[in-house]
């Protein structure tokens, strides 16, 4: 992943892309460090362990969504259904555990399978039905939103009587250490990173994003792989849904709209190109962290909320601008 190649004229296209990706990652990581230093100076309350823990915890849900959608974006697609899809998985987790009385573990698996199913349907619409990803996943976004309301009867499902459910996100396996949700986030980064850089899934993801036609002509079943990639993204959505439900100890059927855009912003800040073909999960992780450090830091300085939104908007503009510069240079 971090192989830097000094020879720009290398014929190995993948290697070259990775190297410029690494540059973007270094840039993003440097921005993160600068932000942390800035906020530590600006507010003495910023660099306290409990605040850092808070930042990490608030990164988890959007972060996991962003990880999953990175795969889709690298193929040159987009997934707008991850926000409300996450809500639907949390509602379904509630249905399995609270309404049907299944064991917690089965409920969690049910939630993740729901996410995978949403991803699969999106992938099917995109590859088999040939609906453009923007439209297909927009439709899925609305379907998931509607289903969440229908299934839950438009009222929240509470896990208050499910013992230990709250601990999935907020407990910690290693006492006194970081909350499980943060641990799960890092595990998801690891799983995603392995998938993307060490397996055939990852190779095809990049390949489809760089040149779909060439990929198809070289005998790869692009349709099948696209469905697999959207389904993987859906699994991440499912995990995010379970974590959100656990943290709020309830499934809130009206939540989730707009989360997809925050996740996409994190992906873009992390250096993944919206035109597909390049990107990295480490970048996305850093992007998500930048978003939550920014929000947290501005809040802790009591900057009015309206301005926080403006600042984050500018950061996204900057990130995309650097991405364009990079493309011009390469």
């Amino acid at each position, binding site marked *: 992943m971090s192989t830097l190649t000094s020879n720009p004229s290398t014929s190995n296209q993948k290697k070259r892309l990775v190297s410029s990706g690494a540059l973007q990652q270094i840039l993003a990581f440097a921005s993160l460090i600068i932000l942390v230093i800035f906020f530590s100076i600006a507010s003495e309350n910023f660099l306290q362990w409990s605040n850092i823990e808070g930042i990490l915890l*608030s990164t988890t849900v959007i972060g996991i969504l962003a990880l999953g959608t990175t795969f889709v974006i690298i193929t040159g697609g987009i997934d707008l259904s991850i926000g409300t899809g996450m809500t639907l998985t949390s509602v379904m987790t509630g249905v399995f555990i609270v309404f049907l009385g299944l064991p917690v573990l089965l409920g969690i698996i049910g939630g993740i399978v729901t996410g995978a199913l949403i991803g699969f349907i999106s992938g099917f619409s995109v590859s088999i039905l040939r609906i453009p990803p923007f439209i297909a996943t927009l439709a899925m976004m609305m379907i998931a939103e509607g289903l969440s309301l229908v299934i839950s009867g438009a009222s929240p499902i509470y896990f208050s009587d499910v013992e230990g459910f709250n601990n999935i996100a907020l407990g910690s396996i290693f006492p006194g250490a970081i909350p499980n949700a943060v641990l799960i986030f890092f595990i998801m980064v690891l799983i995603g990173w392995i998938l993307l850089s060490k397996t055939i899934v990852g190779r095809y993801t990049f390949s489809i994003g760089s040149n779909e036609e060439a990929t198809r002509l070289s005998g790869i079943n692009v349709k099948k792989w696209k469905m697999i990639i959207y389904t993987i993204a859906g699994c991440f959505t499912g995990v995010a849904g379970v974590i959100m439900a656990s943290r709020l100890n309830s499934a809130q059927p009206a939540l989730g709209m707009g989360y997809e855009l925050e996740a996409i912003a994190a992906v873009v800040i992390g250096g993944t190109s919206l035109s597909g073909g390049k990107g990295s999960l480490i970048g996305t992780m850093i992007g998500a962290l930048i978003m939550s450090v920014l929000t947290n830091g501005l809040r802790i300085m009591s900057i009015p909320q309206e301005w926080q939104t403006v600042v984050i908007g500018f950061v996204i503009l900057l990130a995309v601008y650097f991405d364009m510069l990079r493309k011009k240079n390469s």
Partner: protein
Amino acid sequence: MKKKLLALLVVFVSILFVLSACGSESEEASENNNAENEDAKESGTEETATTDEDAGDKPYVAIVSKGFQHQFWQAVQRGAEQAAEEFDVEITFEGPENESQVDKQMEMLQAALDKNPDAIGFAALDSQAASPLLEKADESDIPVIAFDSGVDSDIPLTTASTDNYAAAALAAEKMAELIGEQGKVALVVHDQVSVTGVQRRDGFVETIEENYPDIEIVDTQYGGGDHLESTNLAKTMIQAHPDIAGIYGSNEGSAIGVVNAVRELSKEGEVTVVGFDSGKQQIDAINEGIMAGAITQNPEGIGYETVKAAVDALNGEEVPENIDTGFYWYDADNMEDEEIQAAVYE
């Protein structure tokens, strides 16, 4: 290609028709009846089946609310039914499935007008959208009583709703009392644009500023009523002001966010939490002692006052321009009281 598209469009539209027909068959008996026999003056609605033709001389008030499934609206309906019994009028109570279905509500209002009622009670989802129909009611001399939220029009004789500003002021007074009239407080508000958001913020802020010089408002942030967002921002507030004495959440999602933040940071008992609205998680938090108490509106009062105002109008009596339907402060001490139980919904 064009033909194909056209064919697809036709198929799509017909699917929509079938779907909507199914929908109205199962859920909206009233609509169907209306379409079938337009001349029939009355038609049955789901819960409060109405009179038949010869129940004649009782005045009939058609109430169109923002919904009927939620606990809140069911309580409004209870209040309306209670008043209907007391003043001997017939009512119908209906509303769309969710609070974004402006067009469906318009159809319901239209249907209600077609029934030629003696008066109409109306809680507008969108006051602009409703104005042509309200004018029609005005032309037919049908008095209109607005409830829950005001209508941007002078046609309604009165509006029966919660005085959100005064309710937030009460929350501020309770907060001041609980923290000994001194210290830092902050607000988590659901939004900075809507009328309820603004009034529930200003009522709190201005009461503190005017009456409690030793209380400092250190921060006001907006979480969109989103539980997760509100949790994260309330946590940051506590981080930024570790000595904060209290936080006020201006609706259910905001208040739950504050509760989550206090719980996650193990600040139970150190930060006084005051909420707004009701719901299972708030009630649990009050019972557990994490939340000191909350303000709740009085939905039964809203329903009751709406029907009462309609009756007054029909009897030719003056009705006030606004009717404050009241609100309650509830906490661990009074939660079991009868009048609180009626206003607190899970």
